[in-house]
């Protein structure tokens, strides 16, 4: 028995001593001048190499360049999304950002509850009223939306010009309007430069699992390559890894999505259609700092650098200069409004 009490005593003493240790670099919760920004990621979001990481990169840049103080919260379960946003709002942050459409309801609720805090929702899902008009978010909430169809248009044109085939491939994840946007833009871009080209579009499934099914992605891609397709654009999350595997095996090309996916299959990735989540987050923080924040729906397209495609040292050799000039001309036409890219099929 004495042994037990000795152990207990030692543990208590150890705990008390450790509580007194005050490491030199220990930070208190920051307060003071400057913009305070809070970001809540999605459950399990950090490390996705795409959306959530993009927001992180944008916030880090704001930390560096704008002197913003940023706090990150990673929720552990669904109810933590609201709790995380609320925690940050209650602390009086200047700007609270929720990353992903799943934050839509929670952001709208909290923006009404905390009218003095500004909110931003990346990919915020704007609801439609019965007449089909967009319901505006509260005035202290900005919905950061991306014109994925515009970026997809450019990679569609690129695929048609580089692919040397009248058939182009598209692999979507879940068969939903959000992904149809990618397909519609891609198709429009391809036919803009090659009117008799056709796009074979297939979806991996009807459930969210369709975004996590590389096996299915490979299957679809292999069958498309066998039908004479030379370039496949995927908008399918990690299902796309299967598309890349098929490209590698068939020695054809694939186009990545959301982030630069060149490293997934070097040499076989023609380009990636990227969403500028980092830019959007940085921009929102900058707006708050410069006191020009405005609520409402912000559509980020080519003009705002909200979407783009990768053209750097890795894949430069895959894109001939004549094609590059042509694509840049298309980009200018879209920015100038001379080409209107459809967002629905």
């Amino acid at each position: 028995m004495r042994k037990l009490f000795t152990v207990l005593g030692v543990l208590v003493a150890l705990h008390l001593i450790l509580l007194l240790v005050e490491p030199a670099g220990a930070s208190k919760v920051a307060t003071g001048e400057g913009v305070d920004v809070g970001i809540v990621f999605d459950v399990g979001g950090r490390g996705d190499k795409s959306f959530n990481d993009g927001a992180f990169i944008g916030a880090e840049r704001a930390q560096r360049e704008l002197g913003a103080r940023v706090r990150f919260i990673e929720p552990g379960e669904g109810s933590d999304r609201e709790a995380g946003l609320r925690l940050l709002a209650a602390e009086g942050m200047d700007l609270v950002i929720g990353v992903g459409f799943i934050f839509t309801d929670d952001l709208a609720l909290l923006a009404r509850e905390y009218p003095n805090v500004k909110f931003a929702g990346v990919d915020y899902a704007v609801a439609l009223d019965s007449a089909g008009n967009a319901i505006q978010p509260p005035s202290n909430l900005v919905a950061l939306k991306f014109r994925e169809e515009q970026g997809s248009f450019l990679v569609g044109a690129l695929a048609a010009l580089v692919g040397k085939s009248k058939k182009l491939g598209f692999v979507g994840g879940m068969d939903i309007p959000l992904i149809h946007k990618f397909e519609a833009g891609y198709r429009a871009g391809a036919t803009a430069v090659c009117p008799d080209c056709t796009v074979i579009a297939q979806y991996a499934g009807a459930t969210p699992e369709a975004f996590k099914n590389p096996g299915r992605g490979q299957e679809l891609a292999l069958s498309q390559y066998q039908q004479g397709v030379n370039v496949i654009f995927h908008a399918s999350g990690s299902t796309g890894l299967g598309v890349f595997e098929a490209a590698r095996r068939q020695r054809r090309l694939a186009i990545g999505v959301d982030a630069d996916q060149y490293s997934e299959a070097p040499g076989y990735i023609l380009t990636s259609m990227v969403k500028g989540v980092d830019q959007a987050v940085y921009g929102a923080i900058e707006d708050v700092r410069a006191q020009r924040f405005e609520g409402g729906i912000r559509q980020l397209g080519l003009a705002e650098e909200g979407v783009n495609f990768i053209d750097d040292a890795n894949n430069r050799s895959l894109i001939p200069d004549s094609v590059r000039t042509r694509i840049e001309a298309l980009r200018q036409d879209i920015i100038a409004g001379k080409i209107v890219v459809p967002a629905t099929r």
Partner: protein
Amino acid sequence: MATDRAPAVSPPGIPRWLQPLLPPLTALLIAAVVGDLLILTFGQSPREVFRLLIEGTWGNAYGLGQVLYKATTLICTGLAVALGIRAGMFNIGAEGQLALGGFAAAAIGLLLPAGTPALVAIPVCVAAACAGGSAGAAVPGVLKARFGASEVIVTIMMNFIIAALLNWAVATQLNVAESLHTPEIHAGAVPRLAAVSALFSGSAANFTILFALGAAVFTGWWLFRTRAGYELRAAGLQPDAAEYGGIRVGSVWLRTMLLSGALAGLGGVNYVLGYKQYYEEGFAAGAGYLGIAVALVGRNHPAGVVISALLFATLSQGALAVNALVPKQMVDVLTAIVIIAVATAVPEVERLLRAVRGKTA
């Protein structure tokens, strides 16, 4: 497995009430010391982190509400696992049963016409949640009772099947555009605690916690005060002897599995009826698996389950509060250390206590 009887003879010098508290206390102290060291490796002050953790949970009504909210689900899944273990079964399917329960409550809430009186709608939805959970547990229950299939494997596999099925149902049958959830239920909403005390405003805590506590009382009564409970424990301690003693172990297993599933399914009402009024994919992801830890730390006793559910809920909510100083993963590690410490320290301390008892007897 835990013993329920208080020791016949108290070791000298230790008050009787303290004895059952010593083992978990030791485990928590170990976890606290390891936690200190972890925090120091992140270059933060342990005092500051623990202060934030307590302030953000039990320090104000909102934090407390969040703890109660999270505990509600964990009590249900913890009870589900504990009941199974008492019968000698490892129900790892609480995760899927919980989701199925939540979905069933939402589906029935959608079927009921708007304006159904709460006194009718709530019991119907709660019953649906229990039935949903039971349905998920029926498959492993039947396979175990009839063919002796390992419930561990079947319940794990059922988790995948249920998840896929519900994903499909929400994606194709009941979806709201650009979301992962069903429409809002028409009837069956349970009021939040904020409705009676503004102190709790903003917190997700709601009156479904009464159902969870009721379930704990029921489980205690069922286990220790009924014939069925006696059979259940006998089947758990020594199935062959129980069979020889005239207990039909197969049907006990099936019955227990159904009840266990119902308890897990009940957890779904917390989110669906009490918080959001819709079923959302992954609404309580992980709560089913955490239920295993809750049952273990709670010594498979209903009262212990309630206490340990509160502990894990505190850690989960605290993780948000300390996220400013240390990454969330640190609290995940701390949670794991609590579980390991309980698993190792508790039997050891009990052995010591028994040894002392033996000497004085």
